[in-house]
């Protein structure tokens, strides 16, 4: 498998950000009114906007507003994170808010796929381990995490956690080929063959 060096995501080091709660949906990650845009550039500001600010724009208590977690790069979440809509705006806003990897109990599929397309590793651990890690980060904010996709390990404050990574995702991250367009386009001939064998592409339409 060919490797694209600058896109390889093997080891990610950064401060951790604990964000507790199950079923955190994409409408909470990025409220729909911020989808009115034709580029993703400005989205970092709006991550979790309605949970971070009240209707008058005053900051509320939220891990993303907490000074102690400023500059964090690895988000630690619970169950079914990212459920709801397919909006890539959700991982885009997290990425633009500085998040480079997410550790959690489980993830909604479309969200996980969208993260992968951006080169953001999404890894899972048991409920107990995630809670332990979140507790550790809350106790010692600023703790540096080292996520090793190759070894499937996460190091935090001298403690070692084993993480699970989807096999295909792991290969794509380690080879730096998670941006799939050119990989897919290379099979142009095979694409055309499939198009020729699909019955419905040969039919005349009523219109």
């Amino acid at each position, binding site marked *: *498998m060919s490797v694209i060096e600058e896109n390889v995501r093997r080891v990610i080091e950064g401060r951790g950000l604990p964000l507790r709660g199950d079923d955190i949906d994409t409408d909470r990650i990025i409220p729909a009114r911020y989808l*009115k845009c034709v580029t993703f550039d400005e989205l970092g500001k709006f991550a979790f906007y309605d949970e971070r600010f009240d209707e008058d724009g005053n900051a509320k208590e939220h891990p993303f507003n907490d000074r102690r977690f400023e500059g964090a790069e690895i988000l630690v979440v619970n169950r079914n994170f990212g*459920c709801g809509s397919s909006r890539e705006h959700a991982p885009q806003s997290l990425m633009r808010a500085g998040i480079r990897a997410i550790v959690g109990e489980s993830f909604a599929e479309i969200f996980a796929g969208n993260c992968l397309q951006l080169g953001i590793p999404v890894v899972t651990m048991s409920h107990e381990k995630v809670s332990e890690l979140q507790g550790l980060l809350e106790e010692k904010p600023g703790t540096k995490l080292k996520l090793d996709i190759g070894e499937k390990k996460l190091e935090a404050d001298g403690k070692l956690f084993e993480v699970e990574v989807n096999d295909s995702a792991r290969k794509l991250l380690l*080879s730096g080929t998670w941006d799939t367009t050119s990989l897919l386009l290379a*099979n142009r001939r095979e694409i055309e063959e499939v198009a020729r064998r699909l019955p419905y592409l040969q039919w005349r339409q009523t219109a």
Partner: protein
Amino acid sequence: MGENLFNKVWELHKVKTLPSGQDQLFIGLHLIHEVTSPQAFQMLRERGLKVLYPERTFATVDHIVPTDDLGRPFKDPLAEEMIEELEKNTAEFGIKFFNLDTEYQGIVHIIGPELGLTQPGMTIVCGDSHTSTHGALGAIAFGIGTSQIRDVLATQTLSMSRPKVRRINITGKLQNGVYAKDIILMIINKLGVNGGIGYAYEYGGPVIESLDIEGRLTVCNMSIEGGARAGYINPDEKTFDYIRGRMFAPRGDDFVKALKFWREIASDGDASYDDVVEMDADNLEPMVTWGINPGQSVPVSGKLPRIEDFPEEERGTAERAYRHMGFKEGEPIMGTKIDVAFIGSCTNGRLSDLREAAKIARGRRVAKGVKALVVPGSKRVARQAEEEGLDKIFREAGFQWRNAGCSMCLAMNPDKLEGRQISASSSNRNFIGRQGSPTGRTLLMSPAMVAAAAIEGAVTDVREMI
């Protein structure tokens, strides 16, 4: 042992197994709208790529449409910018766009089936999670993100891992006043909002087979709310009758060939599945959500659940739901006062939905203080409803009759909840903030139940109004 539809369609569309272990899958039909596509076209331009099969992508505009005033430019400059961007992109790359000035504009998941674009045995994607809707006609259909839209535009393929397939059998017989919406709310309530992660759902059994195509679209629409990226129903005679003669349906001899293909692609009688579950609908009542995800629902005659009765891992979400909704454990859902009633969306914005709601509205009045909207899912639905005089019934009852769009399903257009308002809604998501107010509250139910709630000013049992 036979094969199920999902695996047959997957094999037929598989281009190659990629080094990552994922499959490269050919996409038969690609639908796009204004919200998730502009960045994908931008990525194409940056890379100097073109659209490989422009004739297999179709566009519409739905999320940002102001359903009361279609005058251009839109009053909201951001909305105007988004529609202009789609006009520019579709023109530049040669993609057919069912814009507002055509007769066919509507919510993307309404117009696909209605134009005959959606057909059995296809792979269908759209940058929208409710793409699962199209599975109702026997297609594999799922939502994708914007980077994947770029891949489909550039290569007509996607890199995907094959999910497992769960067969969900619904036995029994539906009572009068109980609809497809109630079936899918029951399924999500039983299997959980993340029970479907890693699965495609195949719905079957006597109750599903008895549904008309529009009911089936409602069921498949909400697969994603149960965590399943795709949900489908095997095509049968009803499916074929539905497609026949529609704009993009195969014609003449080709329709005969299509019938053969569609019959063969359905799951074999002895097909195997990774999992099978069965549920009975004999005693199913109209369902109403009380919380902040579509799994948190109760039968209309039921009481709100006790937090201690939830499995431990679900208690946190339940507590949060009670905090947001301001409801109390053990209260009945019946009688909950509402401020807004919304009939529409890709879940329940089709003609049969409007007919059922109109039966309830006919000769009655919307309760004082309730704002009630009926928003057809497409221009075609609106036209047919108007031909039948449904608009008149709604207007006379005090409902507003709007133009086609997503409207109050999500907060991207002027139709929004305000403050702590409670809305009875025929849409699909009761997430916090979904309907436009961060403190607003949403109760999901069938369109007939929404109409009943609008009339009573509170949640009520539609079966007593039929």
